[in-house]
């Protein structure tokens, strides 16, 4: 399909200065409106002329959506706070370093200066068939071009694939799930607060969206409770190019260890499915066990149960198994054993 690049279709630019106005404008224009945060995902779509919204609501002038604030129980991060601000914020670094680790591994410094935490968790799938404007399921069509015998699907889903096999590309999302964050959404019916893991949806629920935001909804803030502040964190991202790339898989975990045993844990992976997956079965299975390589190996096996590889992404199964293992047992203990002939 011919794609005309770098020449955006005309649209009306609206630049509200309050969250209330922004939400009202999104509500007023409904499906014709496009909410733009940092613009990094947006301009791909617009310049490729695949998305042609009639109205773009630029959120960059909404001051109340920016910044990190301490609350009685943790912190609240405005959805328009840049990834760099999140990464460098002293409280985030001190108490919730899992998020700063995850956000710091997103893209490049320049992109993190412009990209926002709200945009990072709300960005669209990177499946190239979809991004190229092909009429796939996610674009409202009736086929997944990646899930065919000849489809290029090395980066695609191994779990919970349902017609569409695209994955969620966010690096901060699994960290926020592991930290038990809450997402604050301003909707036409009022404010709604959802658990981070419930913010994301798979194709079985809605094949055209990666999150629950509907036309007229605006993600305003992300709240992180103090529950996991200062816990033992682990974040690892595996990508093709370490300088700048989307994750093939990433893992984020928060663990509280007491008397050599895992007292409680939250763990999530992304890049394995269309939504970041919280691994509740793993969390339950490791509770009360030592954070050892053995426990990690058991957890890794459990994590990939039900995984179905596509033509070119079978590597993701051992990769995910090992990432989960390392998140629990640590990297040193998870070294490869020598092959015995």
């Amino acid at each position, binding site marked *: *399909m011919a794609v005309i690049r770098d020449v955006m279709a005309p649209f009306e630019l609206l630049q509200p200065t309050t969250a209330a106005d922004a939400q009202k404008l999104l509500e007023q224009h409904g499906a014709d409106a496009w909410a733009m945060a940092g613009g990094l995902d947006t301009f791909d779509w617009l310049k490729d002329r695949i998305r042609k919204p009639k109205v773009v609501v630029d959120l960059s002038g909404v001051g109340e959506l920016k910044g990190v604030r301490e609350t009685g129980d943790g912190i609240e991060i405005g959805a328009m706070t840049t990834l760099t601000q999140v990464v460098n914020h002293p409280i985030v670094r001190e108490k919730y370093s899992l998020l700063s680790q995850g956000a710091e591994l997103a893209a490049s410094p320049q992109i993190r200066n412009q990209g926002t935490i709200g945009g990072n968790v709300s960005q669209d799938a990177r499946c190239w068939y979809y991004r190229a404007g092909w009429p796939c399921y996610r674009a*409202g069509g*009736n086929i997944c071009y990646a*899930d*065919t015998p000849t489809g290029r699907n090395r980066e695609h889903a191994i779990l919970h694939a349902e017609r569409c096999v695209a994955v969620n590309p966010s690096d901060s999302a699994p960290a926020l799930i592991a930290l038990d964050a809450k997402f604050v959404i301003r909707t036409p019916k009022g404010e709604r607060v959802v658990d981070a893991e419930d913010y994301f949806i798979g194709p079985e629920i809605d094949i055209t969206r990666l999150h629950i935001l509907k036309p007229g909804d605006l993600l305003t803030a992300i709240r992180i409770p103090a529950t996991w502040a200062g816990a033992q964190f682990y974040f690892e991202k595996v990508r093709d190019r370490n300088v700048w790339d989307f994750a093939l898989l990433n893992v984020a975990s928060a663990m509280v260890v007491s008397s050599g045993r895992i007292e409680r844990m939250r763990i999530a992976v992304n890049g394995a499915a269309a939504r970041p997956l919280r691994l509740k079965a793993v969390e339950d299975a490791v509770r009360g066990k030592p954070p050892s390589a053995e426990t990690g190996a058991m957890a890794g096996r459990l994590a990939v149960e039900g995984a179905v590889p596509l033509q070119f992404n079978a590597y993701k199964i051992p990769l995910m198994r090992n990432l989960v293992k390392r998140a629990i047992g640590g990297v040193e203990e998870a070294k490869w054993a020598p092959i015995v002939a």
Partner: protein
Amino acid sequence: MGANSGIVQWATSPWGQHVPIHIAWFLIWVAAIAGLAFFMVHAVYLRYFAKREEFAGSVSPELAARLPARIPRHSLVARMFHWIMAASMLTLLFTAFLPKVGFQFDWVTYHWIAGTVLTVSIVFHVIHASFWLDFWAIWPDRTDIEDAWKRVRRFMGQPAPPPRKFAKYPLENKLYHGAIMATGLSAIVTGVFMMFRVRTIFFPRNPYLFRDMTWGLMYVLHGLAGVGLIGLVMVHVYFAVRPEKLDITKSMIFGSMKREFYLEHYDPERWPVEPANLASTSSDKSRV
């Protein structure tokens, strides 16, 4: 995405071909509103304008006296088929269209399971009706056509003798059966092929089974059959709950109807019922 021209959504395939991908979803509302409009028009007509039905011929008191108090109409097997089909059909409609109107849930798995149940039940029904029931009872015959013409003329205020009473199934039932058969089979046949596009337990996925145009037309036909079934099922439920039809509805639950209802609406020559002393040993053939 492609253009929405009329009742079909179109897209451009990666090979530059203009292909249909599915129906325009506003047709869901068209079908639902058409069904509701039918209810209202029909209910108002019956309440304020319809004349009492008048039939030719009469049943001899001797024959009437020999009929059992309850006239067997649907065998247990036929009733089970009907309700299994109804449950699967409703599941199919709800799982297909609720997500399109804003109720999001994991619908695909339930949809293909319900479709499988429907397909199996329809195959069973075809075999059962062909070899164990009176196959032709549900197809319009010459008398139906003649009586329909008389009814049309009388409706238009033209002179015509009253029609005969009905066979086991009135012409409206037979036409409805034909419509539901056409739409249902369209949905089933296309649906079975569409199962090649998703992961099921039956066969491996094969999205290349057909060309894009063929797949697109299949999705469109499936969609058109689906929205057609919305209207047809609404009409069916409407008639099932109408007071004057309740005896028929109950017979689909309990298997039989009152003798008085039978004598009032049905012609014993066109739908013969065995006398009371033989009714208990009657064959399945008399109970379509």
